[in-house]
């Protein structure tokens, strides 16, 4: 979001920063993409669920003194379970009413989470300030934050993991099948309601990872979710619905356009450039880069 250009100012710095930042954007967007692709739902609460994960990691880190990355062994199962329950007991019932209802419910969940986070953690800005999250690494004279590199690597791991899961396992194939043709999937013996629960849970597992690495990279407040939802939405739209690789590449395009936009035109206009690019890509390829 506030991608600062550090060290010496040649074009290599914003390029590498943009790629790494794009990995984080992709990481945030992967869960949104999965839910979008499978359930045809724009999960308006996605950003807030990512931020909720940041806060949970913050609590584990602050009160239990457990490193946030190690803390994922708690955060991921917690978010998996929360995702499954949200789909089963709240969104799933909305799907039974109409296709618009879950969208409104998701907006409601978003508002509830923002206020809940406000009450629990106050509106003050927090961060996952581990010993290594403010360290730098150097390429020549140029200095880069370690947290960006970690977020980028996490983005690759989650993207590759999700792809393997979706193409190699029975459950993953069932999720893919349900996303391509729901009726045919039902006729294959797939319980699509349960599959939606699993898909949402897995999306929240990815959100848990995103929350941790976001929290180590940027400070966050209870309302940060909205701006990350906007970026994730742009990423998903550019990448094409439900394509994990597309989402990842789109994240990098967004990250690069932001840092290069800031480098060329000043940081005030960098987000404007990102969204102009989103519109331009959509005008040329309405189904996204790797969309169906």
């Amino acid at each position, binding site marked *: 979001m506030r991608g600062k250009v550090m060290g010496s100012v040649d074009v290599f710095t914003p390029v590498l920063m943009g790629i790494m930042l794009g990995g984080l954007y992709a990481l945030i967007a992967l869960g949104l993409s999965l839910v979008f692709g499978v359930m045809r739902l724009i999960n308006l609460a996605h950003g807030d669920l990512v931020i909720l994960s940041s806060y949970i990691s913050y609590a584990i880190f602050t009160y239990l003194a457990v490193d946030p990355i190690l803390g994922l062994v708690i955060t991921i199962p917690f978010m998996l379970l929360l995702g499954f329950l949200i789909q089963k007991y709240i969104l799933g019932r909305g799907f039974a009413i109409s296709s618009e209802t879950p969208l409104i419910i998701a907006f409601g969940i978003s508002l509830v989470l923002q206020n809940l986070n406000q009450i629990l953690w106050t509106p003050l800005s927090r961060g996952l300030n581990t010993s290594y999250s403010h360290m730098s690494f150097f390429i020549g004279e140029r200095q880069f934050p370690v947290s960006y590199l970690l977020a980028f690597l996490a983005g690759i791991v989650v993207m590759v993991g999700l792809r393997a899961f979706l*193409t190699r396992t029975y459950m993953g194939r069932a999720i*893919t*099948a349900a996303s391509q043709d729901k009726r*045919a999937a039902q*006729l294959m013996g797939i319980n699509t309601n349960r599959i939606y629960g699993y898909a949402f849970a897995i999306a929240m597992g990815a959100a848990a990872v995103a929350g941790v690495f976001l929290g180590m990279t940027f400070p966050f407040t209870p309302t940060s979710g909205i701006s990350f939802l906007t970026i994730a939405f742009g990423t998903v739209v550019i990448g094409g619905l439900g394509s994990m690789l597309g989402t990842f590449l789109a994240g990098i395009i967004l990250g690069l356009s932001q840092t290069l936009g800031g480098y060329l035109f000043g940081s005030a206009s960098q987000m404007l450039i990102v969204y102009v690019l989103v519109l331009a890509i959509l005008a040329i390829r309405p189904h996204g880069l790797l969309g169906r």
Partner: protein
Amino acid sequence: MTDETILKIENIDVFHGTFQALWDVSIEVKRGEMLALIGANTAGKTTLLDAVSGLRHPSKGSIQFEGEEIGFLDPYQIVELGITQVPEGRSVFPDMTVLDNLLIGSYAASARKRKAENLEKVYDLFPRLEERKRQVAKTLSGGEQQMLAIGRGLMADPKLMLIDEISLGLAPIVIDEIFRALHKIKATGITVLFVEQNVNRTLKEADRAYILERGRIALSGATADLRENQEVKRAYFGVDTCEVK
């Protein structure tokens, strides 16, 4: 064919919202036979298959499979019992490979243990699917997609196979191939219930047929008898065409 009834539909009504698609429909399917469902568009053929598959539930009447009431079950439970549907328009998963399409056919727990065996059977039946197993399904021709849809249905290890609109949009030579495959499937003991628009062809291929008209059963019987039936000749082959080709 035996005299044992595998599927018994009794007096069902099925609604699409407020529109009644099926009126008091009764059908009996014998184990091991090849039964056809004939009728014009909107006669209710797909609705009938969907009611058996659990995609729609009857508001009245009963559907029994091997003596158990199944009218209220969900689609995935129906598949577990051994009923599979090859849907209209093939509906293969377009972005998945041929092999992945076949594997997803064996998703039901009841089918997974015979996955390898059934995959071999499908490849025997349609060698072209094995040649193209790494190919993405949407790149197949219409005929190959129909083979894939039928193969995917076989992967569910069914006792009863429902096939909607077998020949729609396919070339005659491909239709011949599909029907040959259906007879082989029947020979393995799987009961086949299919929907087909081509009455002439259907009456040659199936053992028995039911004719649906505007949601009601108009006629039924052995295909040999239906071919000679004056009403069928009048409705489907024209008044004076007494000879069925």
